[in-house]
């Protein structure tokens, strides 16, 4: 990861990014110091539950958080330029051309009153000065590319005349139109039928590989990330709690939150009507985040130290696998902490002990 050759491939370096929204109740610290790097043509998954700051993080890097009450600090160096300090005029050149985003809900991210055709090519025309006829040809090519049948007819349609999956394909075509170097896909399948989700993810994966485009896949679903991204960030309460190549993450989850996320996935191997292993408690208040580890109030491994000191994001044996925990899953400290908590009757530990009695503390629950 730190080879000189690979530094050349480096596309995006985010350092200590923090985003705060000032609202009447106080300052919501949505992103609290996130750092990561992404190479050209690589994929990164950002995983976490609703409200963990994953979408805000993606939008902060793209400078898409609107409003005067938002402050973002840190740096996001993209191909040598810090996006966060670029003048807005330069950002307009970046958007669509270098950076593109596919949004969560294709029902609302297309303008309902504008024909699909114009929406697919308007930025092409504005950025590259492409003429009407050429834009129309490109639009047909793009729709073919994202596997939309009868593209000419679809281009004349209004968004409400298309299905959800079709609309998301349109959104992907829009994002790909100017051949961006980096694509953010923000929960691209959350609003879609399960049957369509796979097709859309496969489409994104294929385009990403063929175009050697870097992609950040934001999702709440660990299952989406598995096998589709090179690296994964697990976020909780605005911070990265675990960061690893996706393979090693699934082999050996070290952070109790990652483990809990994995455990909460429903499995087809389970008998139907099996209780979902929900994570007890709620995400913390981001106006006044808890001192110590933000996950500590919900963590089955929690120890007194966790409530006082924020654990640093650091690697133990594998330098690429970093996590922020005092009592990591699978470590002797972790096992001891869990056993102690079960013995003391700590509710979240007891709940885990009951739902998965065989997997005491082992990340490889699958």
């Amino acid at each position, binding site marked *: 990861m730190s080879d000189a050759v690979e530094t050349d491939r480096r596309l995006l370096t985010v350092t200590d990014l923090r985003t705060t929204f000032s609202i009447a109740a106080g300052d919501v610290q949505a992103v609290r110091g996130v750092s990561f790097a992404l190479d050209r043509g690589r994929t990164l998954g950002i995983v976490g539950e609703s409200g963990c700051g994953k979408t805000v993080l993606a939008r902060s890097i793209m400078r898409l958080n609107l409003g005067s009450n938002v402050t973002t600090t840190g740096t996001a160096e993209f191909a040598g330029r810090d996006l966060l300090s670029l003048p807005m005029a330069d950002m307009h050149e970046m958007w669509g051309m270098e950076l593109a985003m596919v*949004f969560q809900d294709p029902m609302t991210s297309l303008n309902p009153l504008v024909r699909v055709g114009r929406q697919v090519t308007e930025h092409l025309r504005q950025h590259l000065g492409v003429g009407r006829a050429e834009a129309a040809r490109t639009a047909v090519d793009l729709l073919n590319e994202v596997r939309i049948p009868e593209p000419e007819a679809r281009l004349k349609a209004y968004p409400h005349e298309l299905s959800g999956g079709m609309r998301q394909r349109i959104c992907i075509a*829009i994002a790909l139109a100017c051949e961006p170097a980096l694509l953010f896909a923000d929960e691209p399948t959350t609003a879609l039928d399960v049957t369509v989700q796979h097709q859309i993810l496969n489409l994104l994966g294929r385009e990403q590989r063929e175009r050697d485009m870097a992609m950040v896949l934001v999702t709440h679903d660990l299952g989406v990330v598995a096998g589709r991204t090179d690296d994964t960030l697990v976020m909780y309460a605005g911070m990265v709690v675990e960061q690893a190549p996706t393979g090693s993450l699934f082999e050996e989850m070290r952070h109790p939150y990652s483990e809990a996320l994995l455990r909460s996935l429903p499995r087809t191997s389970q008998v139907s009507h099996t209780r979902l292993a929900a994570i007890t408690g709620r995400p913390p208040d981001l106006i006044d985040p808890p001192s110590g580890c933000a996950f500590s109030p919900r963590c089955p491994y929690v120890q007194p130290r966790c409530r006082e000191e924020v654990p640093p994001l650091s690697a133990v044996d594998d330098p690429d696998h970093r996590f922020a925990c005092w009592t990591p899953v699978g470590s002797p400290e972790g096992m001891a902490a869990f056993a102690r908590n079960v013995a003391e009757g700590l509710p979240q530990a007891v709940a885990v002990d009951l739902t998965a009695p065989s997997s005491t503390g082992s990340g490889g629950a699958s």
Partner: protein
Amino acid sequence: MGTFIAKRLVRLVGTLLAVSFLTFLLVNLLPGDAINALIPIDAQQDREFVEQIREEWGLNDPMLVRYGRWLGDAVQGDFGDSIVTSRTVSSEIFHRLPVTAELMLVTVGLSVMLAIPLGVMAAYREGTRLDQVISGIAQVFLSIPGFVAGLLFIYVFAMKLGWLPATGWNRLSNGLLDNLRTVILPALSLALIEIAVYTRVVRSDVMNTLQEDFVLSARAKGLSDRYILFRHCLRPSSLTLITVVGLNIGTLLGGTVVVEFLFAMPGLGKRLLDAIFQRDFMMIQGITVFVATIYVLVNTAVDLIYMLVDPRIRKAD
């Protein structure tokens, strides 16, 4: 589409029946007597002559009978004669219509053309000094009635500066510039309130539209702010504006009465006012029904425009 228009026609007929009946009733309740318009005061000493005229004009019949007679004629296109000028009501209306129609068109056109950019800018720069200035001006405009603005304009632009005529009317056939010189002050007097109302409507609708996801995705495509505002936000934000313009046509028609009087314009409003003073009941009846028809037609057109603006409504019908 066919059923839509059929439904609207039924509604139009219902509205016109109600309006014409209520007007008839109101004119009937007015103090004073049509006889005053028909024969000079001194001739009214002759009781027999008065009775004869009353019989002739059917003034002694019960109101419902008179209404029925008027309605029967009206459906055949005969709206009666003015009892003052003896010309037919229809010819009077069509003679006066161009003045009022132009005044209305210029007023609405001016208001919409000013209100859209103002409202869009205010929404785009929400909370900034620019927004405060625009909203402040709108607030001031909103609190100036048309006749006050009219008096003010006459004083400043006609009397003090002498740029424009204070009263009168130049037909369009006398040259566009001369025509505009006589229409601009009355139209502006009427437009102030309209500008304010429309600006507020556009501002609040655009502010809502700016929160939409598709605006965010348009930004993420790198489209310019101006393009996003005018090519993406304006259309979804114009439905309320169209509704309000349609509804305000009524208020505006009322406003023309005052403004045409103030600027001595030979329009429908001025004619209606004269008719009321002279108890020229056929004229009152005719103009009122005509204006009501225009109002209903405009608002039917508004519903049709909705369909043009929003394809989803087209589908639903």
